[in-house]
């Protein structure tokens, strides 16, 4: 189950990264960057 969870998490993280890179609005990019932090910590099983 953890593998499936981490797979979903990785997919969401990839989508957020894609949204950050392609967006032209700095406010959207800033929001995406803030979302990336907890996703990354969770994916690495740190928090």
């Amino acid at each position, binding site marked *: 189950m953890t593998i499936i*969870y981490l797979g979903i998490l990785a997919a969401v993280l990839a989508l957020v990264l894609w949204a950050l890179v392609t*967006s032209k609005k700095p406010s959207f990019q800033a929001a995406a*960057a803030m979302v*990336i*932090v907890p996703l990354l910590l969770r994916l690495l099983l740190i928090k």
Partner: protein
Amino acid sequence: MKKHHISAIIFLALAGAAAIVSGTSFLAMRKPDIIVPGPGVSEVVMLSNWYPQLKGTPGDTEVYILGKGNPGASMLVLGGTHPNEPSGHMAAILLIENAVMTSGTLYVIPRANASGFTHNDPQEGAPQSFTIQTPNGPRVFRYGSRATNPVHQWPDPNVYIHASSGQSLSGSETRNLNRGYPGRENGTLTERVCYGIVQLIQKEKVTITVDLHEASPEYPVINAIVAHPKAMGLASETVLGLEMQDITIGLEPSPVNLRGLTHRELGDFTDTLPVLMETANASQGRLRGRTDEALVLTGKDKWYVKAQKLGRLYVPYDENGHPLEERTGRHLAGITELAFSWTLENPDSALEFTGVPAYAELQEKGLGSFLRPLP
């Protein structure tokens, strides 16, 4: 390169930096506190010694044995069942660093839920650690979470069903060590730690088990001993002894319908006499204000003073708070009095130790005076 790509790189770099800083801070919590064994410690072994399946898991934890092989009774002290209740953890550490057995054997587990020390409860604003000044420099101790780290045990069910009774609790209680007894050999990590502790009690024929806790000042069972029916005689004598030292303490019977707790299950499933002790910890209360190291150490909180004036608390509360010295001192006085009461009734199977700081001594000199210098 387009303008929005440059800003994307900048935001990504900032996110990466934030992840590195916060990740380093969270990972640092996995490094256990340094405990310096005192002259009374005969041996330090891991809980997996009694239940090998725990070996290498985040649930495996140190067991300090004092007076190994001594004739007499034995006592197991559990500190850190809930790592956000520091007086139990500190009382266990002071025993390890100071107690010397003159008869009987003492087993001390300072980090009963070792996984719980590796993280904080989200959204509580609790400090990750607190520092105690000693004559030999500062000593730092973890302030953890009430429950096992979800990184180590996941996912929580919607409803936690206690295995041996069928009792239903909220899902997150599945990671609460004091809802998992007597544990299961092939259960969750938390249940396996409970099972390991039960194995220790059974194999070593532990006479008395003391589980050290703290509770919010607004919680009804506080400054109290909770005892299993078969430990009620011993606990009654202990309460009388503490009252004679002007340490006010209540005595509560272990509820029959509240399952999974040490004071109920260890009494039902083993031959040990289990008791649980509670002190007043504002830093885990719902009415508290600013939550920081100072609150953990002093217990001073203006909102609890106000709550006391409104009659909402179950302990006296004034501007002096309830410092960690007082709360740890209450636990140590309770443990000393339990051993004394046992020995009084069972002189042929005595349980005696020296070196443990007395309640008044701890208030006067502070915790730091009884902590050993780091190696």
